[in-house]
């Protein structure tokens, strides 16, 4: 494996198209991530069509770079404007913005950059080490295990998504229903098509993802403007000194490591994602601090730990995506869409049949982390000006990108119509406090769930007990049931609500963070 990675690294460094894809992805991802109201998921969704015309490896390298760099750069907006560029940056702003207000914006961004780089590299190392092991283990999975695994993924998503678990489950079920539209893969009987021929082939993930993560955020942005909300109110324009004193900086490796480890573990749990890991790492750091009362006033640990956690979760989220085909977070759901467009289905077989491609994911993530750090330091003083791009240019451009993105998948205007429909649905779901990510996950996991469930039942001659007589399947099923039932159990026992809400990261509330 190491040989393949080294060979791929050499290819990336010598082939301008591959290196250029990562470079361009990093630059565009950073710019999109900095822009308030443009989340990492939206960045990926609207930049996806840029990969349609290039070869699969360059395309995925570009998307990985966008994913990694936009995850980092959301913190810049959080620090300068007190508005998170991405949901995960919500925690960074707690200490980042007060530090910037003290005239230390440059130092705050440096802490965030170094934390991101450290956490990102830690996540990358763990991805490279453990993904092949998980994939090897997953090769022993048969259809009963895959059935319960998809249920497990959906249940974790419903549980971990911000907002109500009950509504999260409803959103996931709606996604699963959407996945059944069109021809049944086993009998070729059409279902739920309502006589619309364009629906016979089913609904593609891209119009849905672009609609609910892209257009819906444009609509939310427009609503904010209608409410008189301004994003350009008093941004911090002077960033001051960039590098903090060495004496202060050198002691920050501990919060960086702690945040990174939390990020990669939480990120690897299907659907848990970075928004949860940053909350855990921040509270952990505060708990361990000798001066917890200073948190919230601009302490570097409050920036380094969540940023490290945030970027480590990228490597973590790629583990279930690459090895099992289960998205780790909404961004990896869009990435799976990108892989499918290029004819690649993630899962253990990818490690068996397409090792160079797996290596290219590793290499592009590594290069993206390094390039993000270098570009951030080199262009910091200029990059902050991106915050000032006027919205009357940004919003129409993003709206056009959503149309191009949804059209280019199948060259179909019907898909554009679907995207608009899903955009409205995403907007309304956001208003109703219904998590959006389970909807996209349901559409991705639906075919896997149905195919494996029915295959299992054909093999077992209709015997359902097969799901509880196989150990892995049973364990996954128990976890899924407990995750889905936990809120009800906790309510009955009077324990109150879930800790996830401690971040205040409710999609129905925080309209600028998106998903």
């Amino acid at each position, binding site marked *: 494996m190491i040989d393949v990675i080294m060979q791929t690294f050499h290819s990336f460094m010598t082939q301008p198209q591959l290196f250029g894809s990562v470079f361009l992805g990093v630059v565009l991802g950073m710019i999109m991530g900095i822009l308030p109201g443009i989340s990492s998921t939206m960045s990926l969704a609207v930049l996806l069509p840029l990969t349609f015309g290039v070869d699969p490896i360059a395309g995925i390298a570009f998307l990985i770079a966008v994913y990694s760099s936009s995850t980092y750069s959301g913190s810049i907006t959080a620090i300068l404007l007190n508005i998170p560029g991405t949901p995960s940056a919500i925690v960074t702003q707690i200490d980042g913005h007060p530090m910037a207000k003290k005239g230390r914006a440059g130092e705050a961004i440096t802490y965030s950059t170094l934390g991101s780089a450290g956490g990102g590299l830690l996540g990358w190392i763990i991805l490279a080490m453990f993904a092949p092991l998980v994939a090897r283990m997953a090769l022993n999975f048969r259809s009963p295990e895959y059935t319960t695994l998809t249920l497990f993924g959906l249940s974790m998503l419903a549980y971990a998504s911000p907002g109500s678990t009950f509504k999260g489950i409803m959103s996931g079920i709606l996604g699963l229903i959407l996945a059944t539209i069109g021809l049944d893969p086993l009998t070729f009987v059409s279902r739920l098509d309502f006589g619309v021929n364009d629906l016979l082939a089913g609904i593609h993930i891209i119009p849905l993802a672009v609609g609910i993560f892209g257009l819906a955020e444009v609509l939310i942005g427009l609503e904010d*403007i209608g409410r008189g909300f301004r994003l350009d109110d008093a941004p911090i324009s002077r960033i001051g000194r960039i590098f903090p004193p060495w004496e202060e900086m050198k002691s920050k490796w501990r919060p960086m490591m702690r945040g990174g480890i939390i990020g990669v573990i939480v990120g690897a749990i299907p659907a848990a994602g970075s928004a949860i890991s940053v909350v855990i790492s921040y509270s952990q750091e505060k708990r361990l601090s000798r001066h917890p009362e200073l948190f919230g006033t601009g302490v570097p640990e409050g920036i380094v730990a969540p940023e490290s956690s945030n970027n480590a979760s990228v490597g973590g989220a790629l583990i279930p995506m690459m090895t099992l085909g289960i998205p780790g977070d909404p961004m990896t759901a869009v990435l799976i869409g990108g892989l499918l467009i290029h004819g690649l289905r993630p899962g253990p077989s990818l490690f068996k049949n397409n090792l160079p491609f797996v290596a290219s994911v590793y290499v592009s993530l590594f290069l993206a982390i390094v390039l993000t750090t270098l570009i951030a330091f080199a262009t910091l003083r200029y990059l902050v000006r991106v915050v000032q791009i006027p919205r009357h240019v940004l919003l129409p451009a993003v709206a*056009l990108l959503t149309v191009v993105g949804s059209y280019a998948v199948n060259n179909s205007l019907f898909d554009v119509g679907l995207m*608009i429909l899903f955009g409205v649905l995403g907007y309304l779901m956001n208003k109703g406090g219904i998590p959006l990510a389970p909807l996209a996950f349901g559409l991705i996991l639906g075919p896997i769930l149905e195919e494996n469930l029915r295959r299992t039942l054909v093999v077992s001659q209709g015997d359902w007990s097969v799901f509880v007589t196989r150990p892995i399947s049973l364990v996954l099923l128990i976890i899924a049931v407990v995750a889905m039932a936990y809120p009800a159990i906790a309510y009955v026992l009077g324990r109150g609500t879930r800790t996830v809400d401690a971040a205040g990261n409710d999609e129905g509330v925080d309209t600028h963070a998106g998903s």
Partner: protein
Amino acid sequence: MNKEHRNDIITGTVAVFLSAVGLMQLSTVEAFTWGGDVGPKFIPRLLLWTLLAMGVALVGWALARQAVAKRDAFREKDEAGPSGKTWVPYVAPVVMVVSLVVYRYLLSSLGFAWSSLLFTVLWVFLLRTMDGKKHAGRLFWIPVEAVAITGSLFLLFDKILRVPLP
């Protein structure tokens, strides 16, 4: 009615409606099963019934909470506010959706470049007007910005990346 309860009732009702429509459509599908296979209707039917049940539960739960809130005299006033202008923030999203639908139909007749130009001119104008600031030479900058947005996307996708455009 409390906003949260009202949202839950709307969400639940929509879920019930969608599942009922889906179940009706599914009942018209002729399907067969073989061996241990549960058939093509089984999974969608199971999911639709589950969604329907959850929709009913959500409505019931919201009504029950509302009743408790009333009984305890903690009834909250409608959070939408007393003014009759609560619809104002929603005008721009609605106009965006309508303009996108029109744009989608224009794409097939005018092609990408012209229809996109019309779309961006409209939105640059609307957003510049909505931000309330006085811009010198606004009428000059609107077409310039619209051409810049459309032109750069056209060049990027059509000429550089060769991604098919409508």
